[in-house]
C-alpha cells in the first residue's frame, strides 16, 4: 500500500492506539492535518501550543497513557518547549510531533525554521529528525516505546514537510528489534544481591520510613505499596509527585514531606533509621539542606534509573528496578522491620502536636484559601481529579485535598510551571471524561494560560476552575514577606483586573464570584450543578495567608517552621 508520509504518520498514531492529539496547525505540519480529517483520532485545537503540551501532560498523568501533541515548525515548536521541559522534569510520557521546513531548506534560515531537535536535546528523553517517509512508522513506534518504558519522558519527532509529502510503502514495525534502538535498555534484571542487602537493612530497622516518589505512580505500584506497607506497618510519606500513590485516609500515611510538607512527614524522615526511597529522587524541595537530611538514616534507593543512585544522597543499597518488582521481591523475602510500636508512638505524638492548621474563617472578611479547598472537597464526588498551577494554591491543594487513588493529582513538580493548571485539567478531563475535574488555580497562573478555556468550551470539555484570587503572585510575596523584610517587589496583580467573571463569560464559560463564606458555599453548589460547560469561580482570598509548615530554602529540615498558631508549643 502506497501512502504519503503524512498518511503514514496518522496511521502510525492509530496503530499506537492514540485516541486524541492536542495541537495547532501551520505551514510545515499542514500535510499531516489533511489525513487527520479522515482519521478516528480526535484532534483538540488549542489556542496556544503551550496549551497543547500541558493538555497532553494532563492526559498522561490522569490516564497513565502517553499524551500526544502536534504543532508546526518554528514558533509552534518553540511554544511547546515549556511543556516538554516540564514533562522531562516530571518523567511524564509525551510524544510531540513538530513540523519542520523541507529537508533541502534545513540550515538555510528558511521561513519558520528552527533547530527544535537541538533546542530540546537536553529536555527530551530522546528526539528524532525523520529523514524519509519510509522511516516514519519506525520513528513513531520507537518514540512511543521510549516515552513509555523505563523511566518515562517526552520524545519529540521532527518531520520535514517534504518527508510528509513524499510517498512510502506502508509497513509497521512488529518487533522491538525493528525500532532500531541498540543502545536502549530500559530495564535491568533484578539484582538478587541488592535485594538481599536491602532486606537485611529492613530486618533490623526500628524507625523506617517509606519515601514514596513519582516513580511509584509511573510503575503503577500502588497496590504493591499498599500490601507492603500494611504487612510491614511502616509509615509512608508521598512526595508532591506521588500524591495519590497511597491513600491519604490510610492511618499509616503521614502526608507529604518537603519544604511545605506535613510536620510529621518531614520530622519522621529526619529521625528515621532507614529511609526506603521508592521512585523518588531526593529533590532539593524534599531534602532541604542535604547534609542535614535524614542524617542518621541508612538509605535503600529503589529506582529504574541508575543515574539517580548517589546523585544527591549516598545509597547504602541501590536497587535498580521498577518499584512494583522491588516491593514484590521484598515481600517474597518477608522483609520485616523490628517492632515499630515505639516509633509509631513518637509519630502519633508529633501528629497530635502539629496537625495541619489555618486560621478560623471569618464570616465577613476575605476567604481563607485552605478553607475554600476544603469546602470544594467536601462537596466533590469521590475520585474527583485535581489539577493545579504553581504557587501557594498548589501547596494548599496538595496539603488539604485528600487523595485516595493514582491519577487524581495533576501537577507540575520538578519544573514548577505557572499556567500548568487550566490546560492540564482539560487534558485530564479529555482522558477521563467520566470524572469531575477541578483546577485549583492562582490568579497569576490563570492569566498565563486561561485562553485554553476557549478550547474547553469549543470542544465540550466541562472542567471547573477555582481561582484562589489573592491579588498577588502569592508564593513570591510570601518569600518577600518572610525573607526580604516585607519589601514587596513586583508581586501585586490586583483582584479586579482582569474581571475574571467577565473573562470567563467571554470565553463561553460560566463565571462566578465569591467574596464571603455564604457566597463560597453557594457558588460551589452552583458549579457542581453545571456539567455541560466549563465553570470559573473567582474566590477572593486573603493575600496575607502563607503556606505552613515551611522549611526555608537551603535550611535544614530540622528547622521547619510551623504555623504561627502552633508556635510556642514545645516540640
Amino acid at each position, binding site marked *: 500500500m502506497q501512502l504519503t508520509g503524512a498518511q503514514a504518520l496518522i496511521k502510525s498514531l492509530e496503530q499506537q492506539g492514540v485516541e486524541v492529539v492536542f495541537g495547532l496547525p501551520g505551514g510545515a505540519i499542514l500535510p499531516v492535518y489533511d489525513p487527520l480529517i479522515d482519521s478516528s483520532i480526535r484532534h483538540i485545537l488549542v489556542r496556544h501550543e503551550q496549551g497543547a503540551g500541558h493538555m497532553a501532560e494532563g492526559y498522561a498523568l490522569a490516564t497513565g497513557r502517553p499524551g500526544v501533541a502536534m504543532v508546526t515548525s518554528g514558533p509552534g515548536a518553540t511554544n511547546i518547549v515549556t511543556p516538554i521541559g516540564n514533562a522531562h522534569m516530571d518523567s511524564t510520557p509525551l510524544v510531540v510531533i513538530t513540523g519542520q521546513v523541507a529537508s533541502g531548506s534545513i540550515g538555510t534560515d528558511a521561513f519558520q525554521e528552527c533547530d527544535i*531537535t*537541538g533546542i530540546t*536535546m*537536553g529536555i527530551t*528523553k*530522546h528526539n528524532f*529528525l525523520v529523514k524519509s517517509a519510509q522511516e516514519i512508522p519506525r520513528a513513531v513506534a520507537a518514540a512511543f516505546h*521510549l516515552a513509555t518504558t523505563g523511566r518515562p519522558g517526552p520524545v519529540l519527532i521532527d518531520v520535514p514537510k517534504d518527508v510528509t509529502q513524499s510517498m512510502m510503502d506502508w509497513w509497521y514495525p512488529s518487533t522491538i528489534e525493528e525500532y532500531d*534502538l*541498540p*543502545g*536502549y535498555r530500559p530495564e535491568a534484571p533484578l539484582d538478587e544481591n541488592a535485594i538481599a542487602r536491602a532486606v537485611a537493612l529492613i530486618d533490623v530497622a526500628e524507625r523506617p520510613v517509606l519515601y514514596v516518589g513519582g516513580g511509584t505512580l509511573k510503575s503503577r505500584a500502588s497496590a504493591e505499596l499498599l500490601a507492603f506497607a500494611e504487612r510491614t506497618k511502616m509509615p509512608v510519606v508521598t512526595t508532591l509527585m506521588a500524591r495519590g500513590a497511597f491513600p491519604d485516609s490510610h492511618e499509616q500515611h503521614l502526608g507529604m514531606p518537603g519544604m511545605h510538607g506535613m510536620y510529621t512527614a518531614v520530622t519522621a524522615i529526619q529521625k528515621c533509621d532507614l529511609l526506603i526511597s521508592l521512585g523518588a529522587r531526593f529533590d532539593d524541595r524534599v531534602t532541604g539542606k542535604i547534609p542535614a537530611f535524614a542524617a542518621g538514616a541508612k538509605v535503600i534507593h529503589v529506582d529504574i*534509573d*541508575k*543515574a539517580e*543512585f*548517589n*546523585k544527591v544522597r549516598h545509597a547504602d543499597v541501590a536497587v535498580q528496578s521498577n518499584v512494583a518488582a522491588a516491593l514484590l521481591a521484598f515481600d517474597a523475602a518477608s522483609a520485616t522491620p523490628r517492632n515499630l510500636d515505639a516509633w509509631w508512638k513518637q509519630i502519633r505524638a508529633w501528629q497530635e502536636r502539629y496537625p495541619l492548621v489555618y486560621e478560623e474563617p471569618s464570616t465577613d472578611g476575605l476567604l481563607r484559601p485552605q478553607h475554600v479547598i476544603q469546602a470544594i472537597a467536601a462537596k466533590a464526588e469521590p475520585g474527583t481529579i485535581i489539577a493545579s498551577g504553581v504557587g501557594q494554591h498548589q501547596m494548599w491543594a496538595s496539603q488539604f485535598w485528600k487523595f485516595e487513588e493514582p491519577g487524581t493529582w495533576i501537577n507540575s513538580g520538578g519544573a514548577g510551571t505557572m499556567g500548568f493548571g487550566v490546560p492540564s485539567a482539560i487534558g485530564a478531563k479529555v482522558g477521563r471524561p467520566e470524572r469531575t475535574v477541578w483546577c485549583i488555580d492562582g490568579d497569576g497562573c490563570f492569566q498565563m494560560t486561561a485562553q485554553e478555556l476557549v478550547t474547553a468550551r469549543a470542544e465540550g470539555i466541562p472542567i471547573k476552575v477555582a481561582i484562589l484570587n489573592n491579588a498577588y503572585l502569592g508564593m513570591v510575596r510570601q518569600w518577600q514577606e518572610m525573607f526580604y523584610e516585607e519589601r514587596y517587589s513586583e508581586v501585586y496583580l490586583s483582584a479586579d483586573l482582569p474581571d475574571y467573571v467577565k473573562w470567563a463569560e467571554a470565553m463561553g464559560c460560566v463565571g462566578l464570584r465569591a467574596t464571603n463564606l455564604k457566597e463560597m458555599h453557594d457558588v460551589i453548589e452552583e458549579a457542581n450543578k453545571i456539567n455541560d460547560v466549563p465553570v470559573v469561580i473567582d474566590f477572593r482570598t486573603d493575600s496575607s495567608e502563607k503556606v505552613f509548615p515551611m522549611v526555608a530554602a537551603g535550611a535544614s529540615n530540622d528547622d521547619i517552621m510551623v504555623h504561627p498558631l502552633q508556635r510556642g508549643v514545645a516540640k
Partner: protein
Amino acid sequence: MSATPEPFLGVVDHTPVRHHILSVLVENKAGVLARIAGLFARRGFNIYSLAVAPAESGARFSRVTIVVDAESAPLEQIVGQLDKLVNVVAISDISPKDALERELLIATIKTDVDNRTSLLDIIANAGAAIVDVDAKSVTVMLAGTPGGCDELERALESFAEVELHRTGRVALPRLGKTASA
C-alpha cells in the same frame, strides 16, 4: 601518582590522576556528538579530550574516546547519565592504570641551519618521525603516549614558530586487564 610510565620512553603522564577513560560505542547518527557534548556541558562534567572515529567496518557505529575529569563529578554519575543517551550503545570505563593510551601529534617547525641539528635530536629522542620537509620547515609526527606527546610538545617550545596539533587519546585495556562496562 601518575599513570604507568611507558618503558621505552621513560616519561611521566602529566594528566591529573583523577582522569578516567571512557570508551563509548555510539550509533553513528546525526547529532550524537552534540548529545554527548551537551550532556557534559549541562551536567558540569569536564572533558580533557575527546576522539571520535567510525568503529568496525560498517558506518553504523562510532567509537568516542572521552577522557573525563572524575573530579568534576563522580564517575558513576557521568557513566549513568551517558548511558541514558539513547544513541549510546556501550560504555567501557578503563582506569588509567589499566589503560594503554596512545595519541597522535603532528607539528610543523620552522627551522634554519642553526637549529636544524637540535631539532633532529629532539625528533630522534622522542621517537618521532619526519613526514615532510622543505628548505625552511620540517613536519614531524609522533604516535605515542600522551606523556610522550607532552614531552615532545615541551621540547619544541624552544622553536620560534611551531604549528602543532594533537588528536586526543584513544585507549584499550592492557592485556590481562578488562574495562568495566
